[in-house]
């Protein structure tokens, strides 16, 4: 009962956070700002998946959250490596 209201608040807050991330992703002055915004969007999406799993009362979404975490980290490292070295796999 109380958890339902808390989940509504969480949905609203995380959606607003994703909108702010999209703002930074579009407006960011440098390239690393956009990379940081994409990384934050991945973390916020993990939070959204967890909250959605609690709303649906199923644990099946945690595998997708784990996949999101792994691919987000890998893509951030790949972007930074591309900026640092000019190539991803040398």
């Amino acid at each position, binding site marked *: *009962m*109380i*958890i339902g*209201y*808390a*989940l509504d*608040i*969480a949905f609203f*807050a*995380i959606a*607003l*956070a*994703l909108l*702010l*991330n999209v*703002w*930074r992703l579009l407006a960011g002055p*440098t*390239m*690393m*700002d956009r*990379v*940081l*915004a994409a*990384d*934050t969007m991945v*973390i*916020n999406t*993990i*939070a959204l998946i*967890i*909250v959605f*799993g*609690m709303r649906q*009362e199923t*644990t099946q979404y*945690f*595998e997708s*959250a*784990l996949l999101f*975490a*792994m691919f987000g*980290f890998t893509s*951030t*490292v790949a*972007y*930074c*490596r591309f*900026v*640092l070295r000019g190539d991803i796999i040398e």
Partner: protein
Amino acid sequence: MSVTFEIIVSVLIVVGAAFTLIGSFGLIRLPDFMIRLHSPTKATTLGVGALLCASIMYFFNDQGLLSINELMITLFLFLTAPISAHFMARAHLHEHCRNPRQELPPLPEQGGWSIFEDNDSQAADQQSVSQQSTNL
């Protein structure tokens, strides 16, 4: 499900969502990239950690199983957030910092910043190493 338990889980959910929102708001509000790097990597990670704690408690009470997946997500996020922040700071310095001696704060010990090829400090290190070897 008892009322105290519901209140604990709800407070964890609301606190986690608030920290996530604060981290993303800092991404907009803060002035410089190196300052801006702090809010998503710390506040947002803490918010997702609180949400995962709430999820662990909720499913442990609801279905009586202690899922290992949330623990794995928490561990993975808390391990990878500092690494990705370090990578992004390195890439930013590589891209935008042209004069490291003027722009970066001075270092307390000998040796340069690890991203920049600082020939003087490398030479000094080699000298000290060779002095140590001759002393031995």
